[in-house]
């Protein structure tokens, strides 16, 4: 039967290459091809590892291994440099979430993050709206406003340390001009927290302004023009058109700013207030606990694990919800 049909097909289409006698060769060829593919694949693997291997190894050794080993250290009561360590289970975590000093870290982190994020986003948006006016010379302004973002946090902190000095700082002179006595920025914990928020906002607002500006420039001009023809005033235009169309940018900045304010503020915090009284946000606390006076490495590792999962959740939430609910063009 089979032969018959094949013969018939062969008769009908004499040029077809798939006639019966070559069938066994076909199988051999398939095996050959598979073998070749495997050879190619292993050749590809060795090339891939040659190109990407060193980087992957470094990332495994200095990012992934620390993530895992932190989880182990976080279960220990262990002083940095001490050979003795006792396992304490989840005690470090419980202490961080329940002890007064742990709760204080959350309070400081919350205030710092809220102040830093809201401050730099509101000011950044205002600056972006002005820069969006297409006035000549705005490129220079944009560059100037962005510039603190690329400067050393330590350098920035030294400059502002001087400005905030209650006795001889520029700010005390300005306040004195208006007859106001300078607050004790360094001695009072609440003022100290406000001070580091101001400095962080100063360094960060240019980033927000530039990202907002890019968002504003992607809003189609005809929408704004149409609203203008309909006699919508500038404030109405901002709240009815600009802001809704800007929501993707707002959410992007919200998430990046929360993450940055939790991690990048370290240089400013450590240099302006080395002891961390009143300014020990979560990132500063990780450092203070293991490399400050206490040397509580296990406790520090537990806080680091908590920070990692906090950042992980923030990013996941953004992926899950924000991306879908905001208005995209």
């Amino acid at each position, binding site marked *: 039967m089979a032969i018959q049909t094949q013969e018939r097909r062969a008769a009908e289409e004499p040029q077809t290459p798939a006639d019966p006698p070559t069938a066994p060769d076909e199988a051999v060829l398939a095996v050959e091809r598979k073998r070749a593919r495997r050879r190619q694949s292993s050749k590809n693997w060795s090339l891939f590892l040659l190109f990407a291997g060193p*980087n992957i190894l470094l990332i495994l050794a200095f990012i992934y291994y620390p993530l895992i080993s932190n989880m182990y250290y976080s279960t220990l009561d262990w002083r940095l440099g001490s050979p003795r360590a006792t396992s304490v289970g989840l005690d470090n975590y419980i202490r961080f979430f329940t002890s007064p000093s742990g709760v204080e870290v959350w309070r400081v982190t919350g205030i710092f993050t809220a102040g830093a994020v809201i401050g730099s986003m509101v000011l950044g948006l205002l600056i972006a709206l002005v820069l969006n006016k297409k006035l000549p010379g705005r490129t220079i302004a944009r560059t100037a406003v962005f510039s603190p973002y690329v400067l050393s946090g330590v*350098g920035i902190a030294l400059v502002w340390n001087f400005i905030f000095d209650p006795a001889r700082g520029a700010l005390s002179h300005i306040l004195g001009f208006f007859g106001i006595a300078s607050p004790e920025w360094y001695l009072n914990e609440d003022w100290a927290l406000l001070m580091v928020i101001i400095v962080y906002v*100063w360094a960060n607002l240019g980033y927000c302004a530039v990202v907002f500006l890019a968002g504003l420039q992607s809003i189609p001009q005809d929408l704004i023009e149409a609203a203008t023809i309909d006699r919508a005033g500038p404030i109405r235009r901002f709240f009815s058109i600009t802001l809704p169309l800007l929501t993707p940018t707002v959410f992007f900045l919200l998430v990046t700013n929360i993450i940055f304010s939790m991690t990048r503020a370290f240089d400013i915090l450590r240099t302006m207030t080395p002891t961390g009284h009143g300014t020990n946000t979560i990132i500063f606390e990780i450092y203070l606990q293991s490399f400050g006076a206490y040397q509580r490495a296990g406790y520090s590792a537990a806080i680091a694990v908590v920070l990692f999962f906090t950042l992980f959740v923030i990013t996941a939430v953004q992926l899950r919800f924000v991306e879908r609910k905001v208005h995209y063009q």
Partner: protein
Amino acid sequence: MSLTNTPTTPAAAARAVSQPTVKPRAAWRRAFEPRHLADTLLTGYLPIIIAMLIIVLPLGWMISSSFKPAGEIVTLNPTLLPQEPTLDNYDAVASRVPLLTVLGNSIYVTVIGSTIKVLLAITTAYALVFIRVPGANLIFLGILVALMVPAEVSMLPNYLTITGLGGRNTLWGIILPGLGTAFGTFLLRQHFKALPKELFEAAELDGAGHFRKLFQIALPVSLPAIATVALVTVVNEWNSFLWPLIITDTPDKMTLPVGLNLLRSIETTTASYGILMAGAVLVIVPMLIVFAALQRYIVAGLTQGAVK
């Protein structure tokens, strides 16, 4: 850097954020028409000037104060510019910390660290895009997650690793843990993926291998993207503080930010602000110059992912 928004190529980001005014002359004329003049000045230039002053004045104050003698720092009636400019503050910085050594360390760490990081980013991104192996996407996902881990989280285990390897107070100890690069890999991968396939087809017909494809085709057309990665890396390496702070405690192995931190702990009187300002100038002004010259690439790289 967030990894969640769909990033464009750096070139596109640069274009989007640095659109020049379309017709400069027309813009000038329109802005200064009598009808628009009040609006231009009150809601345009006035806030721009206030914003610029808030940013520029502290930096100007730093530079000016770094040339003031101690008497002009502690005075109750400070002047904007130094009355008797002096270099004493810079001399003082050099006498408190081994300034040339520290400066040299910073340059060494920045140059070597950035070079290796950029090379690794290029080769990894190339492999992820052009060398077909099963599981490459999984590896890329792993790199994306690494992008999310802040250095502070891995600080303690890395301290133990590097100390165990004998890397305390060494320059390689400062450089090594930061070498694995997720940011640059991510950025260049997006760029390589956007390259037109036709670029490579002719070379493939000629039997070109991956090395030739990388160095003769992918690299030359990607120079702006690579410049972006390189500059962002240079900025980060130069400013890096936490890790060098932990891993060094002898002044001749410190980088500039750590040396300045040491200087701050020595100089605690009001009169020493001039010295601290001189120190701040040394760490801030080089980056200001780099930024002023190449801001297009740096802004594009740092706001990567923000522009749709």
